[in-house]
């Protein structure tokens, strides 16, 4: 009986030790952050326990708030890789009364002297921070179901492509590492959607976005007309040959199918990245159609 009681308390003690066997927990996350537990890197989830051997990776414009097992919080804002063991050593009992007073008084004294009085502007920012290469208005139509959406990558990724219908109901959301995505409009979610709204957002900061762009499928009458013309093009229309694709890019542009033309130009550049003429032609195409 005695052994059972002792065993029970040993079990309880070990359980208690196990429950405290973490260095930090994730309080809040923003942006792209990863944890290396063992050998692989994985996205951080709120509530996750971190062991002393783990490492954290924080990308640009990202943020992690942690709570130490002692209950003290810690914020990480700077991009970089952090060892959890090192972070644990930063968590102390907190500043003493004297240092708190000193900090408070010194910060109050220097706050005004160090002030930049021109830090705020009398203006606002509206969308368009990510330049999306899609036409507007009547030209925003597509023929082929695979719609390539590409954008300027001057704002660092990763990105989120948000797809909505006309009444702003979110249909899909895709995480994108690069600066383009082929949207398959034959998916079931687009079955009854006449007009599709797409918006590219920076994943770490959704306020940096392209604003919504509406695209729609080519009307049936026009589709029949274009199909007739494609038949006249013969094998060129369906060929995977580089030059044929380049010719088809011109065909689509001529018929005001800018979205399809854009896709063909980019495919050509992807197939022959070392040919500067194709890149020049693409630049001209963007300029002609006011996409840049």
């Amino acid at each position, binding site marked *: 009986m005695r052994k059972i009681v002792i065993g029970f308390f040993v079990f309880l003690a070990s359980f208690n030790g196990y429950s405290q066997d973490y260095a930090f927990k994730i309080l809040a996350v923003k942006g792209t952050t990863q944890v290396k537990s063992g050998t692989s890197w994985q*996205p951080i989830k709120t509530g996750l326990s971190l062991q002393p051997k783990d490492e954290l990776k924080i990308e640009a*414009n990202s943020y992690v708030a942690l709570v130490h097992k002692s209950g003290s919080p810690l914020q990480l804002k700077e991009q970089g890789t952090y060892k959890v063991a090192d972070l644990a050593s930063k968590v102390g009992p907190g500043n003493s009364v004297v240092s708190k007073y000193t900090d408070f008084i010194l910060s109050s004294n220097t706050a005004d002297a160090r002030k930049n009085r021109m830090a705020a502007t009398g203006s606002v920012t509206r969308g368009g921070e990510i330049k999306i290469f899609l036409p507007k208005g009547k030209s925003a139509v597509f023929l082929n179901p695979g719609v390539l959406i590409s954008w300027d990558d001057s704002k660092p990724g990763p990105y989120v492509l948000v797809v909505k219908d006309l009444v702003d109901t979110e249909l899909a959301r895709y995480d994108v590492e690069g600066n383009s995505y082929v949207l398959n409009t034959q998916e079931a979610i687009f079955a009854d959607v006449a007009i599709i709204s797409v918006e590219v957002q920076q994943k770490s900061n959704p306020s940096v976005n392209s604003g919504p762009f509406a695209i729609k499928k080519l009307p049936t009458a026009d589709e029949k007309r274009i199909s007739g013309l494609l038949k006249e093009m013969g094998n060129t229309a369906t060929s995977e040959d580089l030059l044929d694709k380049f010719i088809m890019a011109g065909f689509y542009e001529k018929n005001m199918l800018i979205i399809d033309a854009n896709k063909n130009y980019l495919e050509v550049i992807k197939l022959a990245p070392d040919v500067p003429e194709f890149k020049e032609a693409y630049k001209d195409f963007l300029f002609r159609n006011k996409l840049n």
Partner: protein
Amino acid sequence: MRKNILQAAAITVFVFGMMWVVSKITDLKLFNAFDPISQALSDFELTDYAFSNLRPDPLVDQRIVVVNIGTLNRAGIAQQISTISQYKPKAIGLDVYVGCEGGLRDSINCPALLDTLGNLLLSNAIQEAGNVVIVSELLQKKQTIMDGKYDLLDSVQYSDEIFKDYAYNAYANLVTDADYQDDVKLCRSYMPSYQIGDQTHYAFATQLAMLYDSTLTQKFLNRKKREELINYRGNIEIQDTRATLDKSKKTSTTNYPVYFYAVDVDQLARGEVLGELFTNSIVLLGYLGNYFGHPAWEDKYFTPLNKKVAGRANPDMFGVVVHANIIAMILSQDYVDELQEWQKYSIAIILCFFTVLLFIYIDEKYPRWFDAASVGIQILQLILLSLLIMEVYAWSSFKLDLTITLASTALVGPCYDVFKSMQNEINFRLTKRRRNALKQQKEENLA
């Protein structure tokens, strides 16, 4: 000695008499319109320094998870509740009013009624979860205001029946000076419960704490204080730090930016949160901006945690985080205690009396140094009292409200001089009269 004690008592009475006169004059508010300093400092309390800068760093409360609803519609919120309730939280608080303001149930005044599917989904989610607390609002009838009962709330505006019938209803009113919802709001306290007729209504935070731990909450309610000061622990202030310049600056409005688990609206939808986090927790669903870092001011309050304690500043805390702080206070039994009214006056009278005694002593022994010494003593007392107020609050959560003591300390010097002048004048006049009487008697005797 006895004479001095009587003198000190008389001057103490005079000081408090003067304070009464000054308070009556300021009650008239004749000079308020041209008094920007008073207006700027009207919300200021010395204890705010303790909260915002000087107290020991509090610990994170890991029993509470705050989930951002962003701009989700009712169907989206229903999805959030369904997802969270799978993990068996002890209570879910929905800090969203889901009714028609003023009872106007038409599609123009209450367009949410058109979202029939969303309403049904939300109602169903609340019903299935079984432990959801939704907010109501305590209101005043016009007649009550006309009767001059300005601080009496006499009616309740509930959420719609399809929600309220399946949830715990609790009022979300907080104590502020705001005239309307979007007005500037400073929140230091809240009312744990409110009696309307025969029915006791609980505040949103009280009800959630009750579902989590009824024993602790009952202990809190047994204090029977109509209004409780909130012992703020910390904030949820996740900043948008995309600009390098902003990262190097301390742009946060408080020194305690993240003190509760926080989940953004899209993180829950994308599964970027461990479900176990919600198990046995209190989960609060509320607005923390359209996304983390969104500089929104909707439902945002000024609190004593604000780094800027007076004057114009940015509000620092979303309403849902105020509720989280109240819950943390109740469950941690970390209440704020205050002095009783009689204690405030007693301290002020005792300190004033002994200060006057000291003044009398200096006046008698070192008359040439009296002016300098009395002013020095007053300044020293004011500084020490201010530090004492801040320190006591910072280290023991006891609000040592020494406003009356500070006022009497500020007035004791001038009042002493005025009293002595008056006393001398009276003495002189009485002496002169006696001298005249003696002179007259002497002349009569000679005659």
